């Protein structure tokens, strides 16, 4: 019953919270850049406008992949908030992300194609760190279930500082923030047309945006896990992480893919694996 409630709450509240976060992002970014900026609810206005627009497509298949992407992202979030196996959540997230990549490929448009390749590079960059994170959490809590992990009596970050920092590093990729917003960016000045979403418009673009809101919510949930024993600290930590990402976003230019890949792998080894090795030898 509790599981059913949290799933329903996530499905309803997910986009609201995600949209508000996106609005907050734009307000804070504007402040950082010394602009007036849009109102907090601007993302909702944008998406509702998109929904009313005519959808232009290159072929029918691309719609299917976007639809599958949205469904699977919601599914992943539901798994997370239902307290299921963390590895399963990671695998489901991968499956969902691949749908977006395939959507980009299926248009066979040079810009979307380039975006899709870059999105794949991004996935290859963050995947090791995410797996290392789940392993680290398992080593401390002896459990893969989110429901058990969250009730662990001490904050995980005490045992996993390296893993936590490494995860923050790849979180920038997942949030599509500069310097790692290779596949699609919110900053017009550094984007190759519109990256992976070049051939998507109207409703389909709105679906991608909504999926992204859902995604951000449970990604912050991951941050929360590290502080699970103290809920308030956890929420503050998640918001701080979000603010930090905005800060980095506004202070850096887009990196090349080679650097993205190499640096995230180096971080995964030097922070993540070393943390795990230490845990293994001490424990």
């Amino acid at each position: 019953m509790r599981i059913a409630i949290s799933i329903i709450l996530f499905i309803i509240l997910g986009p609201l919270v995600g949209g508000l976060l996106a609005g907050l992002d734009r307000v804070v970014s504007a402040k950082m850049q010394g602009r007036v900026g849009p109102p907090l609810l601007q993302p909702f206005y944008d998406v509702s406008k998109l929904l009313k627009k005519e959808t232009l497509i290159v072929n029918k298949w691309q719609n299917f992949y976007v639809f599958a992407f949205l469904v699977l992202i919601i599914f992943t979030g539901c798994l997370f908030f239902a307290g299921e196996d963390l590895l399963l959540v990671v695998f489901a997230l991968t499956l969902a992300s691949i749908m977006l990549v395939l959507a980009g490929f299926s248009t066979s448009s040079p810009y979307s194609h380039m975006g899709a390749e870059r999105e794949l590079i991004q996935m290859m960059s963050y995947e090791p760190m995410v797996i290392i994170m789940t392993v680290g959490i398992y080593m401390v809590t002896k459990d893969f279930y989110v429901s058990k992990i969250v009730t662990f009596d001490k904050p995980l970050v005490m045992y996993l500082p390296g893993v936590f920092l490494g995860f923050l590093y790849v979180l920038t990729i997942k949030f599509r923030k500069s310097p790692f917003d290779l596949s699609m960016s919110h900053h017009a000045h550094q984007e190759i047309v519109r990256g992976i979403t070049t051939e998507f418009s109207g409703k389909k673009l709105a679906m991608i945006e909504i999926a992204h809101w859902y995604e951000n919510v449970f990604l912050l949930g991951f941050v929360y896990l590290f502080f699970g024993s103290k809920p308030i600290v956890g929420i503050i930590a998640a918001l701080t992480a979000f603010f930090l990402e905005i800060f980095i976003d506004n202070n850096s230019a887009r990196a090349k893919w080679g650097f993205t890949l190499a640096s995230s792998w180096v971080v995964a080894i030097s922070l993540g694996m070393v943390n795990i090795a230490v845990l293994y030898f001490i424990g």
Partner: protein
Amino acid sequence: MAVMLFLILFPLVVAVLTALTSNSRLRNWIVKMSAGIIAAMTLVLTVLVLKFEVNYFKVNVDIVNKIMLCLELVMGGYIVYLGIKRRKYIISLLMAIQAIILCYIEFKQVHSIEIDHNMFIDKFSLIMAILVGIIGSLICLYSVGYMSDYHQKHKEVKDKRRKFFFILYTFLSAMFGILFSNNLMWLYFFWEITTLCSFLLIGYTDTEEARNNANRALAINVLGGFAFAVALAFLAGKAGILELDKVIAGEKVSVLIPAALICFAGLTKSAQMPFSSWLLGAMVAPTPTSALLHSSTMVKAGVYVIIRLAPVLNDTAAGFLVALVGGFTFLTASLIAIAQNDAKKVLAYSTVANLGLIVTCGGIGTYESVWAAVLLIIFHAVAKSLLFLCVGTVEHTLGSRNIEVMHGLIRKMPKLAIMLIIGIAGMFLAPFGMLISKWAALKAIVDTNPILVIFIAFGSAATLFFWTKWMGKIVAIPQNEEHMESHVKKSEAYPMAVLSIATILVCLMFPFISSLMVNPYVIEVFGHGASMDRGNVIIMMIMMGLVLLLPIRLVTYKKQMKEVSIYLGGANADAPKRFYGSMGSVHKIYIENYYMDKYFGEDKLTFIGSLICALFILLMLFMAFIY
């Protein structure tokens, strides 16, 4: 018992029959019928074994041993001759020493050793037998159509199809032999047959390249066989054991050295680095050969013995080093696969990588890891054979096996493309089989030695990259492409369709496969079973349902949406996919995947990987000796 003997002997009979039949119609008919019979008998065997549990058999015919020795010496003589003829004297030398060791064991040592059971079958042999029986016979069926196509396309290659089918069936027979032998001398005998068969199959086209690659395969596998022979001599001399079940149950002190040597043989056969080159060279052979070598037979024989020996390896330095060799191979081969655009080569590297993962699990040797390893074998065999057959057919229809040429395959040959996608998804995506087993492997590794996680974490990331970009090529929708599926022959299409369905079915049946076959074996050996939580299984099933049901959405798009041409910087020319360049010139766009050869170049990474793995292997043998 009768069924087991039938499975070993019947393919041999068929092999002789096909060799004697000069009429190709009749021969094709024989091949098809016997493939059906073998598959059916495998099912009979399954039912029998599931009913009557483990069985050991005492086939006490002294004459069998003598015949085997004679055949072995004949084969050995042939290989020595080959080595001299092709100026690869090292092969001759190794083979000659092997023959001497063998004779020594047979005439000096064997009398004193009591052999209780020559043959046996348990759940693990059964699983392997099902894979060999069903997948092997599907590949035979496929090759009927493929080979006639092949000889139409390649007029320069001499038509030796009688020989081809002869070897193919001998190979199947030898595989069954390996799986059912408890007497290690017998196992070794069948082992050597597969070595010789693979040599002959790889050299089929008789071109310069084929000959070289066949030589290399022979050299590496003879080296493995040599290690095996030494292991037998050790076992017979020091421990007085020549049976598989006794080795596994034996004292670690006395059996670890031979076990390490047999592992070495297993590493050569399953193409772990630095021995991976022979399997990659096997690509020159016609596709059914590669499919057979890669998916269900040859390489699986290698990991089969390693997993058999897992209880011995468990908790030893040698075992840990075997795991390291596997781990490094998994990582390096996955990274190299990124830089390949030859579809068959990508498949080959992925095979090497996955075998590496299986070897890692075998080397760790806990109940969880063995459970994962057996699952990996099952899922890999099904998906990989499907992929090979698909690529073979694509190559025949499109005239190339370059992945770039598969751009828009989903439009050109939708059915084939969907089968190919199922195969690829089966290799790395949730909720398909390989992912389930990778997950199991990850859990097993975390519970024993989390440091090894590094290989899985990075290797899987690379795997994800090269499979998805291939998939992306297939699903790309080009404008204006012709439909050309009708060229595919039925005898090629059926095996592929069966394997596609099987890829999905083995995932759906996963809980039953685990509880009926894999787990009983694990419990029998380790006294401890592994399984996946019920909740997770249900979620996997839901995911599978989602993946299978989501495509319905494709049919439900009713209203016509406005289709436009792709964005080309606003400079689209009249025809789709053409644009205006400077001075009004018209260009066609061309899209290619990323290969990143600079980072993941084959030569560099192979060198590094081989070096590291060779060091580990030497260290492994050393550690076994000082145990």
